[in-house]
């Protein structure tokens, strides 16, 4: 529970008495610690260890992005929800080829069915190809081919040029938006993983390498079409974000501070928006939907129920 707070103006963040104080020349603002669930720091701030120990005390994950809006990393407090049993299950599913393939495919299926709702493209062929895939590489290939179609549709829907996917640095506004949007989704999923007993480094579609929370990359596949691409289409179609919101040079393109603020506001609104959950028989926010998806994964790993990715567009609003 509690709010996600987004810091987009530079300043200092520190502990003051028993709460968080954000301060710069113009603003002095206290953030009620009991009401913070997560922090997105999308600018340059200075801070100290006392601030981090306060976050740790309250189990608050903080995500940091640099001046250009690149994801730097997250402060992931000492975990309080540990389960050795589940970690063993996670690893078992990784080591068993069939099990690993099942989960890797599930995440891509999630990505495809949720993209279908956004782009309205035919997915039959790709889902069929996915069924035939016998290793991760082939799955990635199917996903790659499908993504190409999506990006083409994205160009048509928004009327903006995409050309090819370029990262580090993105070279045009659409690429800049996708980079920023996707990194927000990774961070958000990671923030939810923290509150489950899942270990964020054991993954199935992406290789679990060092220094990465790769399980959040896996689960993000399911939510990227909704929380990143869908949002981009909406923002560009409604002209909420225009050319003025980008910082464009010959070699790179980034969202400027104003553009980032608009994007974050829309992202937050979307996370708070609710859909009807047929199983729980009540409305849940998208933020909760991410958490529920992770619990479904837990149930799959412990052998209670097979994991099937959520079809967002089939849920009633």
């Amino acid at each position, binding site marked *: 529970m509690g709010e996600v*707070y*987004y*810091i*987009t*103006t530079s300043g200092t963040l520190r502990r003051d*008495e028993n709460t968080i104080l954000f301060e710069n020349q113009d603003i002095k603002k206290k953030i*009620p610690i009991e009401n913070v669930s997560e922090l997105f720091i999308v600018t340059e701030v200075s801070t100290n260890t006392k601030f981090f120990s306060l976050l740790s005390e309250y189990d608050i994950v903080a995500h940091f992005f640099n001046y250009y809006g690149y994801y730097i990393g997250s402060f992931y407090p000492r975990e309080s929800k540990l389960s050795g049993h589940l970690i063993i299950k996670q690893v078992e599913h990784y080591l068993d080829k069939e099990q690993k393939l099942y989960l890797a495919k599930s995440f891509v299926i999630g990505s495809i069915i949720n993209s279908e709702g956004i782009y309205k493209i035919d997915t039959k062929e790709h889902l069929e190809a996915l069924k035939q895939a016998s290793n991760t590489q082939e799955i990635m290939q199917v996903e790659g081919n499908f993504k190409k179609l999506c990006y083409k549709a994205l160009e048509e829907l928004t009327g903006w040029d995409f050309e090819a996917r370029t990262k580090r640095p993105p070279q045009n506004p659409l690429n800049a938006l996708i980079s920023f949007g996707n990194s927000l989704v990774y961070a958000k999923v990671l923030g939810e993983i923290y509150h489950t007993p899942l270990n964020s480094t054991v993954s199935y579609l992406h290789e679990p390498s060092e220094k990465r929370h790769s399980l959040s990359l896996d689960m993000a596949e399911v939510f990227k079409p909704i929380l990143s691409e869908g949002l981009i289409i909406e923002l560009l179609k409604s002209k909420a974000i225009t050319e003025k919101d980008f910082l464009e040079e010959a070699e790179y393109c980034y969202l400027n501070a104003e553009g980032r603020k608009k994007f974050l506001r829309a992202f937050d609104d979307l996370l708070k928006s609710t859909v009807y959950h047929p199983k729980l028989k009540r409305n849940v926010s998208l933020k909760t939907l991410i958490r529920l998806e992770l619990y479904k994964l837990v149930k799959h790993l412990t052998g209670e129920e097979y994991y099937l990715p959520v079809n967002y567009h089939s849920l009633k609003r």
Partner: protein
Amino acid sequence: MRIILFYDIDTTEKKGQRRLQKALKTARKYLTHVQKSVFEGNLTASGIERLKNEMLKVVDKEKDSLIIYILEDTTNYKREILTNIKDPTDNLI
């Protein structure tokens, strides 16, 4: 649940000044300070209980006034800021 809290601390004695400072610090931990002695925010049921407990330890039950509104999540309400100040409860800073 949406919470609105306000207090009136009797500061005729010096002790009152200290209670006022303490009340401010405690309330700030849970809620956003929106006006002089008015606070707003969202809390869970357990958060509300903790807030009540902590506040009651600070105030003088005979001399001070402490009032809290609790709006259930299902309550429909409209909140309008009629002047040009920035919304103090904004979560985008």
